[in-house]
C-alpha cells in the first residue's frame, strides 16, 4: 500500500491538483486540510507518513503548523509548498524541521521526487 499523505493548502484547486499528482504516483492521500490549525488536528487523527504544507494560509500559516506538528511528533516528515518570493519563509520552515520544499505551480516530476526523498 502507498505511503499515507496529508495535503495542506488553503486553495481547493491546489489541494486537488497535488492530490491527483500524488495518487497517480502511487501515494495514498488520506486527508486534506485548508489551514494550519486543521492540519494539526488531522495530523494527530490520521498520523500520515508525510505532510505537504502550504505556507500562506488564513487562520494559521504553514510555518506555525510545522512548529506545532514537530512539537507533537518530532519525527514528522513535512515538505513545504511555497509560492514565488517565499524563500525566506522556506528557510524558516526548514529550520523548524521541514525536510524539503516544492514550488507552486507544481511540476509533477519535482513533486514526486521531493516526496519520495523526504520519505526515505
Amino acid at each position: 500500500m502507498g505511503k499515507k499523505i496529508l495535503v495542506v493548502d488553503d486553495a481547493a484547486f491546489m489541494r486537488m491538483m497535488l492530490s491527483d499528482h500524488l495518487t497517480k504516483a502511487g501515494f495514498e492521500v488520506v486527508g486534506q486540510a485548508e489551514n494550519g490549525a486543521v492540519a494539526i488536528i488531522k495530523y494527530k487523527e490520521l498520523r500520515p507518513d508525510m505532510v505537504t504544507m502550504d505556507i500562506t494560509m488564513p487562520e494559521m500559516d504553514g510555518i506555525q503548523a510545522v512548529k506545532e506538528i514537530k512539537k507533537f511528533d518530532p519525527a514528522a516528515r513535512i515538505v513545504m509548498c511555497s509560492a514565488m518570493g517565499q524563500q525566506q519563509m522556506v528557510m524558516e520552515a526548514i529550520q523548524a524541521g521541514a525536510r524539503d520544499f516544492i514550488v507552486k505551480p507544481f511540476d509533477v516530476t519535482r513533486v514526486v521526487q521531493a516526496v519520495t526523498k523526504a520519505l526515505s
Partner: protein
Amino acid sequence: MQQVSSFQLDVLNEIGNIGAGNAATALSLLMGSPVDMTLPWTKFCPLEEGCALLSRPDEVGVGVQVGLDGSVTGRMLLTFDEASALHILLAFGDMLPEKDLDNEMARSALMEVGNIVAGSFVTALSEFLKASAWCSPPTLVHDYFDAFVCTVMVSGCQDTDYVLVFKTELQVGGKVLHSDLAFMPAEDSFRMIMNALGATGG
C-alpha cells in the same frame, strides 16, 4: 498630485514586464498549456482615475484581490470580463470538471491565476528593491465591475491615494484576453519604491 517621471514609469513598466514573463511561465505550468502575457501599457494615477480605468460600465466581471505583506504592503486587484474568465476555465481542460464561475473549484483555480499574476509582479518588484514581499490568500468577486472595482481598490487602503495600473494581454488557448492588474501600494511602500527608482530619474 504626486509626480512620477516618465523614467520612473519606464522602470515600473520594465519590472511589470519581468513579472509578466514569470507569470506566463508559471501559468503555463499551472494550466498545462502555453500561456503568454504582455503589458501594452502601464499607468500611474490617483485612485479615482484608476477606478474609472478598471470599471467597465454595465459589464459583469471577475476580480481577484490579494494583499501584500512583508517589506512592501498594499494590495493588488486582477480583473477579467466574464467571457475571459470563462475562457481561462476552459483552458484548464480536464483538470476542472465544472467550468462555472459559481463552482468552488473553478473559483479556486481563478484565484490561483490571480495569485500567480500578483505574486510574479511582487517578486519582480521585491527583487528590484532587494526586499522581501509576498501575497496573502486571495479572494474572488464575481459581479458588475461598478459594484466591486472601486470598493476593492479603496477599502483597506486608507493610506493609499494612488494606483499603478498594468494593462495586460494574456494569450491562452488561441485567444488574447484583456485584463487589468491594479497595484495599490501603501503610502510608505510607495515612497520606498519611488526612492529606489530615483527621485529625479534620468
